[in-house]
């Protein structure tokens, strides 16, 4: 057949018309849309019966109540518990993504024993029986040799039944070395001890306060019990409560506050004393409280009046004197003012004289143990176990000095000084640490000067991790005895620090344990039984659950029903019974500490010529920097001006950047006396010139691919600085040098 022009064109046009008019094309297009989606390329979540379980979140020490939605035996969503005294329905970003930890790839499935060199990541599975007997044998050997004191425990907390079981075990075994992860709470405990003579936790009545003077505390950045603080902040929005935020960087808290006052970093104590100066001079203090319930005021007053006039404070802090005077006046004239401290999330204790100076402000306005003020909250005494009977070996071991120097002649008031442990091990000045348990903590990530911490760990011949996740510390352990994940176990969640009223939460199994894990409480009991003698006698319970039920007594039923227990007849102490000092009054200048009242700036590391800038950390609620790291969802929320690919951004004032010839997004080399890191530059007007800010919570080497290997761990760049009175870590930053990379 011959194809001429005419037939060719008719074929073309006819074809086009036919195709358009025929439903075939449209049908095929529609089909293809449907068809390509018919294949099981995406999972189809199984439907089932929906139910809700109330529990408590223990991903941080905030103690929020949670309600978990379940479909059959799967947990599908975590929500905040309605009616809970702390979070009433709200929940933080980390708590919301908890299921990614429960079902995530970082869980430790079974007890593991290290094969080959430490930290290489080669493990062999062992049975629980084998694991427990191995630990019992090692500890038994040490004890036989009279070295029971060389065993130690690093614990995330020293409250609640599981930490107390560890404590009990260590006591009857014969070692004084239970060390708690440190935080601003250590400084507050010490302050309350010295100024009020009590052993108590601080409780802040934020909900009733109407003027918050925050010395760098990240009220909406994760300080205290985070969700409670978010709610308090909104309460102030409604009631007209004022927040004044003092810090050198415009944090989220500073941006939310009514007034942000940038200050030269590390000079907060001077400002607190300067405010005290104005309050005293203008007689704005609570005369009744000062006259009847305080001691040493005259001495302190003279000193404050002599040395901390607004002008000299202005020179130190960089805040002009008019602002200081106005601030002091509005603080003292507010009906329920409250001053707080603890930088960022309060993960470092800071200097003790800063905490006492800030606390003195509260005393000046007389808001101690008063509505809208600060309370000394005694531990709820629900854990009443019979005294342990120590044998001779245990008694000898308990007599030994603590390795971290807490309670020693140098630092008689401190209870835990974990920051001093690496140095104590590395110098070998006291005695070596031969066995170390780590529970509820991840010291290889969270402790400052990572290199020194790693070196110290390498010197400990036997490290046991109780972590549910393969974190940095578990990776470098000899034995991992994985705890049930927090949604798989019963546990009491003690009142979070900062809460004025006792609220004990109950963590309970939302799902059955997924893997071959064991409750750490049960492991302690099994271990004690394996060791026999007095140690076994001190642990009469058959299981942890039995121990918990028995300990909580009548509270158990309330907690099972409501999910938490709160104190029904909580009352406010009168000033007459509040203070247990020698004088029976509030001590403005505790004698035990001598020079405490003075402002001596913390000597941070590095000299000005080699390291012209100052590096400070900043905390964000979107970057978990505690026991667990960010799950994938939370990583997703991190801004691209904080992390891009694997590069972390430092925040730099455009002025400082200009002086160093650095532009937005440019690579730079950051070096401090402790370490070096490659970073990218982000220009931020909200940071004081001369400062460099780096976020905490990145630079993990453990956990999953969604988190590991991204950014820098701030702790690699900073080391601890010992406070001269408390021995706690007082470092707020470090000197730093910045160069183009």
């Amino acid at each position, binding site marked *: 057949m011959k194809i001429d022009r005419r037939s060719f064109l008719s074929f073309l046009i006819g074809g086009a018309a036919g195709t358009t008019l025929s439903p075939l094309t449209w049908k095929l297009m529609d089909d293809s849309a449907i068809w390509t989606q018919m294949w099981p390329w995406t999972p189809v979540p199984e439907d089932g019966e929906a139910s809700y379980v109330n529990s408590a979140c223990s991903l941080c020490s905030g103690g929020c109540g949670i309600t978990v*939605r379940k479909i059959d035996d799967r947990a*599908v*969503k975590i929500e905040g518990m309605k009616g809970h005294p702390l979070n009433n329905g*709200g929940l933080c*970003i980390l708590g919301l993504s908890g299921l990614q930890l429960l079902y995530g790839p970082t869980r430790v499935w079974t007890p593991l024993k290290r094969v080959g060199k430490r930290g290489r990541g080669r493990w062999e599975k062992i049975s629980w029986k084998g694991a427990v007997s191995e630990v019992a044998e090692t500890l038994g050997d040490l004890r036989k040799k009279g070295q029971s004191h060389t065993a130690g425990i690093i614990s995330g907390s020293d409250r609640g039944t599981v930490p107390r079981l560890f404590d009990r075990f260590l006591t009857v075994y014969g070692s004084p070395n239970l060390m708690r992860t440190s935080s601003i709470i250590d400084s507050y405990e010490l302050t309350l001890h010295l100024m009020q003579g009590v052993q108590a936790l601080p409780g802040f009545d934020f909900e009733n306060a109407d003027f918050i003077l925050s010395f760098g505390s990240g009220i909406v950045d994760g300080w205290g019990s*985070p969700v409670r603080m978010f709610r308090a902040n909104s309460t102030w929005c409604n009631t007209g409560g004022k927040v004044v935020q003092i810090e050198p960087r415009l944090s989220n808290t500073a941006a939310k506050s009514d007034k942000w006052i940038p200050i030269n970093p590390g000079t907060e104590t001077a400002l607190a004393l300067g405010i005290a100066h104005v309050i005293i001079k203008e007689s704005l203090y609570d005369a009744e409280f000062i006259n009847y319930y305080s001691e040493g005021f005259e001495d302190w007053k003279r000193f404050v009046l002599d040395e901390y006039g607004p002008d000299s404070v202005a020179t130190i802090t960089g805040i002009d004197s008019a602002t200081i005077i106005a601030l002091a006046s509005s603080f003292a004239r507010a009906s329920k003012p409250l001053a707080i401290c603890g930088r960022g999330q309060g993960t470092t204790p800071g200097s003790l004289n800063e905490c006492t100076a800030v606390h003195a402000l509260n005393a000046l306005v007389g808001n101690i143990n008063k509505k809208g003020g600060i309370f000394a909250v005694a531990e709820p005494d629900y854990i009443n176990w019979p005294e342990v009977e120590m044998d001779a070996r245990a008694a000898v071991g308990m007599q030994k000095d603590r390795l971290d120097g807490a309670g020693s002649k140098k630092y008689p008031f401190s209870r835990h000084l974990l920051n001093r442990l690496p140095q104590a091990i590395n110098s070998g000045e006291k005695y070596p640490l031969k066995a170390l348990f780590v529970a509820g903590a991840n010291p290889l990530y969270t402790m400052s000067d990572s290199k020194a911490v790693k070196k110290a760990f390498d010197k400990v011949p036997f490290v046991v991790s109780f972590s549910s996740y393969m974190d940095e510390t578990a990776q470098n352990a000899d034995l991992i005895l994985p705890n049930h994940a927090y949604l798989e176990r019963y546990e009491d969640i003690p009142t979070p620090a900062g809460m004025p009223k006792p609220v004990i939460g109950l963590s309970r199994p939302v799902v059955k344990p997924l893997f071959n894990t064991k409750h750490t409480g049960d492991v302690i009991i099994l271990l004690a039984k394996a060791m026999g003698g007095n140690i076994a006698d001190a642990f009469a319970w058959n299981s942890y659950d039995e121990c918990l039920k028995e300990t909580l007594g009548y509270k158990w039923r309330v907690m099972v029903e409501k999910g938490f227990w709160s104190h029904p007849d909580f009352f406010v102490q009168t000033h007459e019974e509040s203070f247990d000092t020698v004088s029976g009054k509030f001590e403005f200048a505790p004698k035990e500490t001598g020079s405490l009242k003075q402002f001596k700036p913390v000597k941070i590391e590095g000299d000005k010529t080699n390291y012209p800038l100052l590096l400070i950390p900043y905390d964000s609620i979107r970057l978990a920097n505690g026991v667990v790291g960010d799950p994938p969802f939370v990583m997703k929320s991190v801004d691209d001006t904080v992390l891009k690919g694997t590069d972390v951004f430092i925040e730099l004032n455009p002025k400082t950047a200009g002086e160093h010839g650095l532009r937005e997004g440019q690579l730079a080399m950051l070096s401090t006396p402790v370490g070096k890191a490659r970073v990218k530059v982000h220009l931020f007007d909200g940071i004081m010139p001369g400062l460099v800010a780096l976020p905490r919570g990145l630079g993990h080497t453990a956990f999953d691919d969604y988190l590991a290997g991204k950014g820098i761990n701030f702790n690699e760049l900073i080391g601890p600085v010992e406070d001269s009175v408390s021995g706690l870590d007082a470092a707020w930053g470090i000197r730093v040098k910045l160069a183009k990379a």
Partner: protein
Amino acid sequence: MKHKKAKKYGMVINLDKCTGCGSCMVACMAENNVPFRKDESDKLLSITWMRVYKLTNGKPFPNTDICYLPRPCMHCEGQHEGHSPCVTVCPAVATDYNIETGIVSQIYTRCFGCRYCMASCPYKARYFNWWDPVWPDGMEKYLSPNVSPRMRGVVEKCSFCFHRYQMAKEKAFMEGRRKLKEDEYQTACTQACPAGAITFGDLNNPNHAVYRMVKPDPKHHGRPTNPNAFRLLERLGTNPKVYYLSSREWVRRVGDNYLKNESIAKKTVHQG
């Protein structure tokens, strides 16, 4: 008559209370089976139905200020009901305006990924699945059966947690009720916000909190009459159902494209 009965679900976000904590973002991801990848730092590829933007006033230290702005789908009403920018361009009727609730839907099985809707959305609230979602082994256990996971090649966006509306309606029906109480249907972000910055409810109901907070003007497509309230890109005439409250003027200015010396507009431009 019909119009009186219809609901117009909307959201009011108080930027004075919002702390930028990101709980809304994650509550949404957890509720709606939103996927995630190993690197989420390229925000053009990162699927976030609810995204929190950080705004700055651009002033040098120490007069700098920042504000966070959570951005869900605006569920635009358009110049007349249902005339949302995305709905009008979709060739597959994969996105539709629900007259009963005012919610703009996204029907994944109809979508064939032409992404016209993404181009037409002025709020960048729509996201394309460039890859099939992958959950690490075992993690698919937490997926909710109420929202189907999406595959490669389709567009997705905030649905005002429409499945929660359906569940609330079913529950009410089982209890023999026809009306929903205000708190019965709430989105996941509203419920999770620890600061209580988000309020969700019926903008047609003068008794609902959302109505009382913004006082929408029915003559001007629900433009807020509360001077502290604003909608994003008001002058485009998209008539979003998400309102923002802020006591700070610079924040309200950032909500639309103003010329340098222009004061905040008093009236909207009506187009087409």
